[in-house]
């Protein structure tokens, strides 16, 4: 819930406001101005001190030679050396401080840029994203802007420091010896003429590099999001070729770019190395002739070397600046489009519109003059329901999207509660409209996050604390029930594994439910559930569970570790189980590899296999060894692998090998022996399955059962669900479990949910918001019949008269109760009216439902 914090919203809002001055129009230097100026000033101050600390050692150097050594003054030597050392230490410390400050300023600017650009990108019209691959947006935000941030950090510190140092050294050199100084400084004008020319070439290459990288990331994004199509067509080669071609192009551009960059450095280096040569010639000559003392020459040469450092930094800065501005400009240019609608009204609260819809002469044209909608007229009073039907491509979704402000219509009017939709802000829209799209999107997070998504967005900028305005648990549960995802969420809850430290109270309650359940449904469900019983072999549990008959409390007794647990291995020996289990493991390995050996790692193939898809390769090799080697000659590692396989064998699920009855006997014997031993040796290691104890290693469901389900048959699951729900209601725990279920993580893009579940969540999310106008674009297309009928009947009863509804409908058997039906064809409304009228007319709707000509 913390994510809906008011403070955060305000912060986001303020960033959003900044976006309104169009981040894409900002120049790179403008980021320097908006960076933290106090920090920049501090940086400047530090730099000035550093410059002084850098010059001091030079003077000391000269004095050490000229005064201390020459006249044998030990005292002076110590003094000057001490000063020298102090200056070096201070310079180093300050240098670090400078880097730290620059880093701080630069990273902050980068973060601001990334935020502002991202906020801007999200507001761009849908059309923009039709031609823009996600990969491109990623590379723009993540890589291309980085150098710009870097530049902002360096922008004041580096040039000022370098130039000041340069001037200081130059002044010092002139003071030392004007002639030599003139000679050594004479090279820099030459560099200044040459470098920009080279840099220009580098910039050109850089521009091409940015563009090509952009296409490349777009290409990668496209291939990854369409990877099912690539697998389906086996078109690896085609895709590889396309990708390779682009990489090759990028490779060439990068080489050229780097060569130019290096040449800038090389030219610079060359001239810098040239100047000592001049000094040696001239300075050496003067010294030999006795017109220059040796100390002065030494000082001059080392000062002259030092001048190279700031110069190098200056050139590097120049290169960073050039690179950053090319990348920055290229990136900002690409996203330089305007949102089609304002985000928020400037000086008023969002409208509370009444739910009437008036469409007048609406048309929508896309690039290339294609007319998607043409001359649409319709009107709905508040609470009226309209179904849009027609062949695919007839424009029904487009019409719904135009009304929902997802597309900006190009002609005519859409009036929502009397207001023109184009002129409304996004905030007005979300306050009054609920839109369920054809392909709803589920975001990473919990079910709860996803259900509250629309409400949170609506309330986001209101100054209301969450507790007042956000839907209550009861509201959420109601929405779950309405959309028919309640049982699914309950299942998620039931499949949760509780944590001892957090849930002891709940665990105690569930043990109570367990008794209740057994009493009431034990007999009825005996066919579907295998209850834990100390004297019976459990065919739907692992061999490990059958042996230990308890759940591990310490790491070394978990299923994965038992095969390497020395205590357990000794026990297996003692119980005469090692050999039979190894034999079983070998048989499992052989049979599974025989069946699955050549299949791809698809989930469906491995659901009934003791070997996981990841392990298959390893066991394939082991199977080959097994064919050649006797069991007792196998390496310890191989034996562990086989034992591990045997211990996870579940005869009820892994059908490739039968369970030998003699092994069953042995295991039941072993179970008793194990309990005896471990109770003595390490009583805390496991909690035995006991009807009075909660089992923390297992799900809530298995705990209620005190057993395992035998079947995945939907009939049986339904019966089980119903009985569990009944017991939970009686024990007043239903809501608690559903609440736990709502914490289920849906995975990235909701990949842990089915298509139907995702669609139900999307509907629940909008129902919870209870908008005045509901637009559903084939919102129930992925649902099974029952769920679809349930939602339709809700629309027919609960929402009728409450919310105005525009529903794009694909299936024609659910439209009878709509107030109006509009049949669309080629972007126009062919006919419109109540169901019975249209059928009686035997027009287009009749044709759609019964075919062109009936055969009678």
């Amino acid at each position, binding site marked *: 819930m913390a994510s809906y914090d008011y403070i955060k919203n305000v912060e986001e809002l303020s960033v959003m406001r900044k976006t309104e001055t169009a981040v894409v129009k900002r120049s790179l230097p403008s980021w320097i101005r908006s960076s933290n100026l106090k920090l920049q000033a501090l940086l400047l101050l530090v730099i000035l001190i550093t410059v002084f600390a850098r010059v001091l050692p030079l003077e000391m150097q000269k004095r050490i030679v000229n005064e201390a050594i020459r006249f044998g003054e030990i005292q002076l030597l110590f003094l000057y050396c001490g000063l020298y050392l102090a200056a070096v230490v201070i310079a180093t410390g300050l240098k670090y401080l400078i880097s730290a400050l620059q880093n701080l300023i630069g990273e902050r600017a980068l973060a601001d840029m990334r935020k502002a650009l991202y906020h801007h990108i999200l507001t761009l019209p849908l059309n923009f994203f039709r031609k823009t691959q996600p990969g491109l947006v990623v590379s723009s935000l993540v890589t291309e802007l980085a150098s710009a941030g870097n530049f902002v950090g360096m922008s004041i510190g580096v040039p000022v420091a370098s130039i000041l140092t340069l001037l200081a050294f130059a002044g010092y050199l002139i003071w030392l010896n004007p002639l030599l100084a003139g000679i050594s400084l004479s090279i820099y004008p030459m560099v200044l003429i040459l470098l920009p020319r080279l840099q220009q070439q580098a910039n050109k290459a850089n521009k091409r590099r940015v563009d090509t990288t952009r296409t490349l990331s777009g290409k990668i994004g496209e291939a990854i999001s369409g990877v099912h199509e690539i697998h389906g067509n086996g078109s690896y080669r085609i895709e590889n070729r396309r990708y390779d071609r682009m990489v090759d192009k990028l490779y060439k551009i990068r080489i050229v770019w780097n060569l130019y960059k290096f040449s800038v450095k090389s030219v610079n280096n060359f001239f810098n190395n040239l100047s000592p040569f001049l000094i040696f010639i001239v300075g050496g000559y003067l010294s030999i002739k006795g017109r220059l003392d040796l100390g002065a020459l030494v000082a001059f040469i080392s000062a002259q070397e030092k001048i190279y450092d700031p110069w190098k930094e200056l050139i590097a800065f120049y290169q960073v600046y050039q690179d950053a501005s090319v990348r920055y400009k290229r990136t900002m240019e690409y996203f330089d489009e305007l949102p089609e609608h304002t985000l928020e009204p400037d000086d008023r609260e969002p409208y509370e519109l009444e739910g009437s819809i008036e469409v007048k002469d609406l048309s929508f044209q896309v690039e290339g003059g294609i007319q998607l909608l043409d001359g649409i007229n319709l009107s709905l009073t508040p609470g009226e329901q309209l179904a849009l039907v027609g062949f695919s491509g007839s424009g029904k979704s487009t019409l719904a999207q135009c009304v929902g402000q997802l597309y900006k219509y190009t002609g005519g009017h859409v009036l929502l509660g009397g207001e023109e939709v184009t002129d409304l802000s996004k905030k007005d829209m979300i306050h009054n409209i609920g839109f369920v799209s054809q392909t709803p999107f589920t975001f990473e997070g919990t079910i709860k996050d996803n259900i509250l998504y629309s409400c949170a967005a609506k309330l986001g900028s209101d100054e209301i604390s969450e507790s007042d305005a956000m839907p209550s648990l009861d509201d959420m549960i109601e929405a779950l029930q309405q959309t028919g995802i309640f049982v699914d969420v309950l299942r998620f809850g039931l499949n949760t594994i509780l944590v001892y430290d957090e849930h002891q109270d709940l665990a105690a309650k569930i043990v109570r439910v367990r008794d209740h359940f057994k009493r009431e449904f034990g007999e009825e469900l005996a*066919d579907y559930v295998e209850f834990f019983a100390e004297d019976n072999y459990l065919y739907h549990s692992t061999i490990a569970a059958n042996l230990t008959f308890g759940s591990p409390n310490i790491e070394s007794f978990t299923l994965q570790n038992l095969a390497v647990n020395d205590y357990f291995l000794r026990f297996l020996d003692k119980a005469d189980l090692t050999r039979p289990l190894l034999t079983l493991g070998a048989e499992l390995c052989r049979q599974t590899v*025989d*069946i*699955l050996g*050549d*299949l*791809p790692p*698809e989930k*469906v*193939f491995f659901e*009934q296999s003791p070997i996981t898809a990841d392990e298959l390769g390893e066991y394939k090799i082991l199977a080959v060894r097994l064919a050649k080697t006797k069991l007792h000659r196998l390496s310890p590692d191989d034996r562990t692998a086989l034992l591990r396989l045997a211990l996870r064998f579940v005869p009820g699920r892994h*059908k*490739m090998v039968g369970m030998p009855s003699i092994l069953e006997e042995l295991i039941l014997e072993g179970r008793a022996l194990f309990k005896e031993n471990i109770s003595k040796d390490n009583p805390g290691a496991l909690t035995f399955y006991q009807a009075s104890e909660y089992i923390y290693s297992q799900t809530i469901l298995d705990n209620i059962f005190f057993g395992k389900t035998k*079947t*995945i*048959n*939907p*009939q049986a699951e339904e019966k089980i669900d119903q009985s569990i729900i009944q017991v939970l209601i009686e024990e007043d725990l239903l809501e608690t479990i559903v609440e736990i279920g709502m914490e289920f993580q849906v995975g990235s893009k909701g990949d842990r949910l089915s298509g139907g579940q995702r669609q139900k969540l999307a509907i629940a999310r909008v129902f919870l918001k209870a908008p005045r106008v509901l637009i559903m674009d084939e919102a129930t297309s992925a649902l*099974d*019949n*029952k769920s679809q009928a349930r939602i339709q009947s809700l629309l027919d009863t609960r929402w009728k008269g409450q919310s105005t509804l525009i529903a794009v409908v694909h299936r024609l058997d659910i439209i009878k109760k709509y107030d109006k039906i509009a049949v669309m064809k080629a972007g126009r409304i062919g006919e419109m009216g109540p169901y019975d009228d249209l059928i009686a007319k035997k027009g287009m709707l009749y044709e759609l439902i019964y075919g062109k000509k009936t*055969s*009678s």
Partner: protein
Amino acid sequence: MDFFSALSLQALKVFAYLFTREMFKPGDYLFRQDDNDGIAFYILSGTAEVVRKDESGEFSLGKYGEGEFLGGLVLLGDMRRLFSLKAVTDMSCLVMTREKFIKALEQFPELIPKVLETMVDRIRSWEERLLIDQDALCASCKKKVGVSLV
């Protein structure tokens, strides 16, 4: 199971592995009208009844028993059920889902022609049987035969 009669040994192993066994009690639905469940059943024991429901009520359309394979067509593609199948006695079935079947078929593409051939043959012989005892059909029903012409 003429579907599986001509499989290679390796393919047969994979398909056999992918079948799971399910039990049903009298009154349980194996599948329901209008659902798109995508499941095929091979009946090991017991009897099931085909039922269709429309506006005039529910009527039974015959029974299936041991050794019969139902739902070959459903494995091949999306299909909403026109009938329900309801267990009359205790039943034990082998069950295959469309997802598994299609994924497995992708691994053995050489089977695809065989599968299609079996399907075509089944549809043809179905209609042939219908035509042979067409005396039992009403006059207007006779005009509507011709599924094998699609």
